């Protein structure tokens, strides 16, 4: 256990506009909420170690200092003057160390760039070394993406990047099959998915078939405009080959004429990482291949960028 506590924070966890570096053996134990607010409990196989809560505000005149004061008042706690973790990009941060041996320590902070306010609770029931890892190594790496910048996602072993303006609507997190559904205010939808190990996935179903079965339930049915075509995308200096299809999605008869959507989807095989990368973009206007290509090209940034840094 001691050796593990000294481990560096080598793995990225990114969700809903924030990201943190954690030890490799930590994983999300519970994910609640969605884009606007939610929480993630992080821990290892045996115990919960840290809880990250977030709230998003759209108000530009949001008073972070007042929010922090009110959180402290609600908790009936006094912020410590020194020794507080200081992640960059946060203002009005407050640190409440655990008062007793089993008392949780809490950190509050506001990130104006991402329009996020965050609360991080570090469990007091674990060993001192694990507490130190959480407060001195993981918490200072916390950062947020600007609200008008692309959002990064990294969960378990899969990482994605969604274009600015897209928010999380739905998710399916199964080991070996991780999918996110995002939507924008312009009624665009984007599904990002990774299936792995690819050898097993391709033994079960050929590459083109991975586009035929939607991960999330939809009322509209896909009608192809052309047969699927070979396609490739440039990702971190590598060329990934796959298949692209385009068509329309319509409601079943007799509602087919109502609000049809254009859809473009592609699946590529990343042989280096042994993964199938799938993206589907649909909108009311013509399909946008650039969004699709960007979504696929930026997948697995956590593994492929140097050290996984954003």
């Amino acid at each position: 256990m001691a050796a593990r506590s000294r481990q560096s924070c080598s793995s990225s966890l990114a969700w809903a506009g924030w990201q943190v570096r954690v030890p490799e053996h930590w994983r999300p134990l519970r994910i609640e909420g969605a884009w606007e607010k939610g929480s993630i409990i992080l821990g290892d196989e045996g115990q919960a170690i840290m809880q990250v809560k977030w709230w998003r505000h759209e108000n530009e005149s949001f008073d972070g200092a007042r929010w922090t004061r009110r959180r402290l008042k609600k908790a009936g706690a006094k912020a410590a003057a020194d020794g507080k973790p200081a992640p960059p990009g946060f203002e009005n941060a407050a640190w409440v160390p655990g008062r007793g041996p089993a008392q949780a320590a809490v950190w509050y902070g506001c990130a104006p760039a991402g329009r996020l306010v965050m609360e991080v609770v570090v469990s007091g029931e674990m060993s001192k070394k694990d507490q130190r890892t959480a407060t001195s190594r993981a918490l200072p790496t916390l950062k947020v993406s600007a609200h008008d910048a692309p959002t990064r996602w990294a969960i378990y072993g899969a990482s994605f990047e969604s274009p600015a303006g897209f928010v999380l609507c739905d998710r399916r997190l199964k080991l070996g099959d991780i999918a996110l559904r995002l939507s924008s205010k312009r009624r665009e939808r984007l599904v990002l998915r990774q299936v792995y190990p690819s050898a097993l996935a391709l033994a079960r179903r050929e590459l083109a078939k991975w586009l035929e079965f939607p991960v999330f339930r939809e009322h509209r049915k896909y009608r192809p405009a052309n047969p699927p075509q070979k396609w490739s995308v440039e990702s971190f200096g590598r060329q990934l080959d796959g298949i692209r299809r385009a068509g329309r999605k319509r409601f079943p008869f007799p509602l087919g004429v109502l609000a049809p959507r254009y859809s473009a989807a592609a699946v590529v095989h990343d042989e280096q990482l042994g993964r199938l990368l799938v993206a589907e973009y649909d909108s009311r206007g013509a399909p946008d291949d650039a969004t699709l290509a960007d979504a696929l090209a930026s997948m697995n940034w956590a593994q492929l960028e140097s050290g996984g840094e954003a």
Partner: protein
Amino acid sequence: MSPRRKLDRDTVLSGRPEQAPAVRREERPNGGVKVTFRRVRRRWLGWWGGESEVERSFGLDVLGREVYESCNGKSDVKAIVRKFAQKHRVSRAEAELAVTTFLKTMMTKGLIVMAIDKDRVQRKRN
């Protein structure tokens, strides 16, 4: 009788799983394996005239077979997880969750048994 206590993560990861003796093994076309072994029936079923032991078969796919075959009584769970993560290029946390859940299922079905260091458990409890 002492109450059942949950083992901590380190103790579980140091456990050495071993295959239960199988009656037969059949190769499957998808690269998996079908393992058949004898299992003691619940006593109340015997009252109805059933046999005391029955044969049970379990089909394992390629990944399941790989983990099952790693259960040789020498490698500990930690080593199996590390090997699985390296081979399939998945994160260690993900491999740990997948492998430990699968080992738990195999233990419930009686396909494997887990050897845990008794002294280690005692030390942890003290």
